[in-house]
Each structure stands twice: as C-alpha cells, then as structure tokens.
C-alpha cells in the first residue's frame, strides 16, 4: 500500500529526473562541441520562429488590449488612468509576454515536436537512425534546442511589443487617452532590466519546452495511443514547469534587482 502510493511514484520521478538530466547534459555537450547536424537548423528556425510569428502577434495584441481596457477601467475612479501605459508595458515585458508566448509555443511547437519524435520512436525510425551511425540527439534534438534558443526571445519581444501596441490602440482609440500620456511613463520606468528579464525568462521557458518535448517524444512507447499519451504528458509537464519556473525566476530577478540597484 505505502509502496504503491509513495515509494513507486517517488522512484519513477527520480528515474524521470535522472534520465532527463542525462539527455539534457549530452545534448548541451553536443551543442558546445558543435557536434550536431547544422543543416537541420534552417527548417527548425523556420518552423519554430517564422511560422509562430502570426500566432504570438495575435496573442500579444489580444492580451495587451484586454490589459489596457481593464487597467483603464480599474484605475479610472482613482484618477490613475495615466498609469495605464506603464501597467500594460511592465506586465507584458516581465510577466505576461514571456509566459503567454511560451504557452502558445508549447501548444504549437512543443506538442508537434513530441508527436513527431514519438511517432519516429514507435515506428523504429529513431532506431534506424542510430543503426546508421547517426545519434538521434545530433540530428533530431540538438538542432531543435539551438533553434528554440535563437527564436523564442525574438518571439517574446514581438509578442510584448504587440501587447503594448494593442494596449495603446485601446487606450487612445476607445478611451481617448493621448498617446504621450500612454507612452511617456513607459519611457521613464521601463528599464533595460525589464527587457533582460523578458529575454532571460523566454530562454528558460524555451529550454523547458524543447527539452521536455524531446524527452517525452523519444521515450514514447505503445503505438499511436502511446504517442498521444506522451504528447499530453509533455504539454502538461511543460505548462506546470513554466509556471513553477516563472515564480522562481521572478523571485530571483527581483532579488537581483534589489542587490544591484538597492531597495527603493
């Protein structure tokens, strides 16, 4: 009873973490030594980056518009509508932009990576690759890590910019706010630190998306149903990991800010 409730799941979790860590370490080693298929970068850059632009633009725009409408509404009876711009910008840059972009990329790219690799695993294509002297990490995994690392900060910046634009559009066109009132506090209060936080968070989330998707995909078993299970587990694990790491990164970045610039 105790074994089935506590010990077995704990052992399975430790096994999962161990295998995941081994995979990530080996892939990083391949990337650092340049021992992977560079020719695979272009298609993955296109798939992860270019083909996701429309989605992240739309998402950023929609969230920015809602944030602006809600901020204006909530702040109007307190006479603080001038803070609408800075609320939208700060929220989009340090929190909502990275998290939401990562969620969208998990659904569009992470799930696809897991399903593709899972399908290759259960139809022995991964074994065939290995038998031909090509390590699947070199060909299938490492190029995806590099492509994600290059594209996700760009996508997050684009989503954040679209969010700010959407916020301005609603504030100025719907509520008649002067553009200067919307943008002036942004120029004053948004610092490089916010942009660095945005990029750092997106890099961590991108790593979680691609590493978890590849891990679940390459360990899929049990035919089409197994691939489906692996994809679902991959997406759920990624979402939970992003939320957990977002909290930890926020605490860390705040503490770092206070350490560098002092507590105000």
């Amino acid at each position: 009873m105790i074994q089935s409730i506590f010990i077995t799941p704990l052992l399975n979790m430790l096994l999962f973490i161990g295998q995941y860590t081994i995979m990530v370490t080996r892939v990083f080693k391949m990337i650092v030594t340049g021992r992977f298929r560079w020719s695979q970068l272009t298609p993955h850059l296109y798939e992860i980056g270019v083909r996701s632009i429309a989605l992240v633009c739309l998402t950023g725009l929609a969230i920015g518009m809602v944030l602006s409408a809600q901020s204006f509404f909530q702040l109007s009876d307190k006479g603080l509508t001038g803070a609408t711009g800075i609320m939208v910008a700060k929220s989009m840059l340090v929190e909502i932009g990275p998290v939401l972009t990562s969620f969208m990329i998990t659904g569009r790219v992470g799930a696809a990576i897991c399903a593709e690799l899972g399908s290759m695993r259960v139809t022995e294509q991964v074994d065939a690759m290995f038998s031909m002297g090509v390590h699947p990490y070199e060909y299938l995994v490492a190029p995806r890590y590099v492509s994600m690392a290059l594209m996700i900060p760009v996508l997050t910046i684009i989503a954040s910019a679209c969010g700010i634009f959407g916020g301005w559009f609603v504030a100025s066109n719907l509520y008649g706010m002067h553009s200067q009132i919307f943008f002036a506090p942004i120029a004053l209060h948004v610092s490089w630190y916010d942009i660095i936080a945005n990029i750092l968070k997106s890099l961590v989330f991108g790593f979680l998306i691609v590493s978890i998707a590849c891990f679940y995909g390459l360990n899929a078993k049990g035919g089409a149903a197994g691939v489906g299970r692996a994809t679902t587990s991959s997406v759920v694990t990624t979402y939970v990991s992003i939320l957990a790491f977002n909290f930890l990164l926020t605490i860390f970045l705040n503490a770092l800010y206070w350490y560098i610039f002092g507590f105000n």
Partner: protein
Amino acid sequence: MITIRNLWKTYDSTPVLKGINFIVPPSSITIILGRSGVGKSVLLKQIAGIEQPDQGSIEIENIDLCSLSEHKRRQYTAQIGMLFQGSALFDSMTIQENIAFAMTEKSQAKIDEALENVGLIGFNNKYPAELSGGQKRRAAIARLVAYKPKILLFDEPTTGLDPITAQQIISLIQETQRSLQATALIVTHDLVLAEQIGEYFALHDEGIIQISGNRQDFFNSNHPLVQAFISGRSVP
C-alpha cells in the same frame, strides 16, 4: 564473424534474453527461427548497438562491443546495417533523401544505382507514405545497401507481404548479401524464406538458442522444438 556469449536483457523485471550463446559464421546467411514474441528482434537490437545488454558480450572481429565506450562502439556498429520489420523509412524525407541520409559521399548516380538495384527507378521524389508495403521494404533495402555495411541484420523481412512480393524480397536479400560479401543474420518465423536462403540455422525459444547448426544438421535434428516448428505442431 559475430560471437555472442551469455547475453542477457531484461525489460521491467521480465527477462527476454536469458543467456544467449551463438556464433554467426562470416560471409554467410544465418537464420534465427522462433515464434513471435520470443525476443528475436531484441537480440538484433543488441547486436546493432541500438540497445545495451544487461550482461554478456557481443564480439565482432574479436572486439567485444559491450566493453567499448559509446563513441567507439558506434564506430563498429556503423558497419552494421539493419532492415527493420516496418521498414523504418524516415517519413519526412523522400526516398532519395532516405537513401542519401547514410551515404558518406552523396551522389545522384549512387542513389539512382541503389534504386535501380531494388527495382524502384523513378521513385526518387516519392515519400514513404506513397509506397506499398513491398516497395517500402525494397526502398529500405536500397538505403541499407547504400552505405555498404559488412554485417546485415534483417528483422522479419517478409512479414506482411504477399508471396510474390516476399519472393522478390528474398531474392534481393540474397543478391545484397552476395554483392557485399556480407555476414547476414535474419530473424524470422517464415520457413519458406529460411529454407530458401539460409546456410546456418538456430532456434530461439524461452530466451535462449535451443539448437543451432548448418542446414542438414538443423533440419534433420530430432529436437522436439525444431520438429514442432517445422511441422507447425504445438510444442510438446
């Protein structure tokens, strides 16, 4: 020559290989017969280096693959080519790209030659999903031959094919082995295939090689499992 000694492999506490001892003679075709699900494919995956055995040794040219580092092991296993049961062609690539994948020196002439050898001229730009089962198997053989391995492993090469297509695949296997002067190991439960091209035989059951020998010794054996397998009776 491939020498396998005391090979063990366990999945989730279930032993599949329980101390396999077996020798595959060089430049010949060896058949491992056995019922479905006894672990014949698992044995091939250990030899191809796709999986690591729990215990035992696999020696190729007197080098124990199991004692080598992964990097060195891959240098040796690169001379092994394996035909998978489901062909295992890469879905996202055309047939031409599949063949070129493993080539060290890629050239259109070599790709065309490989396709011609298996009777798939003009299939260069087709995707695996557009091919029939027999065509996929032939394309997989073309990919296998393209990098000229010294050891050929075939996992149930005729399973799921009609008798005519199966016969074509059998001929292709024979031609490939002869042209490459390779050591071929075929696992199958297809007696037609086995009797037609096998030179040496082994029977795999209960996780071990029950009996092995040349054609005459094997088919004349009084071993009850061999007799049961040949006659299609249930094992006594």
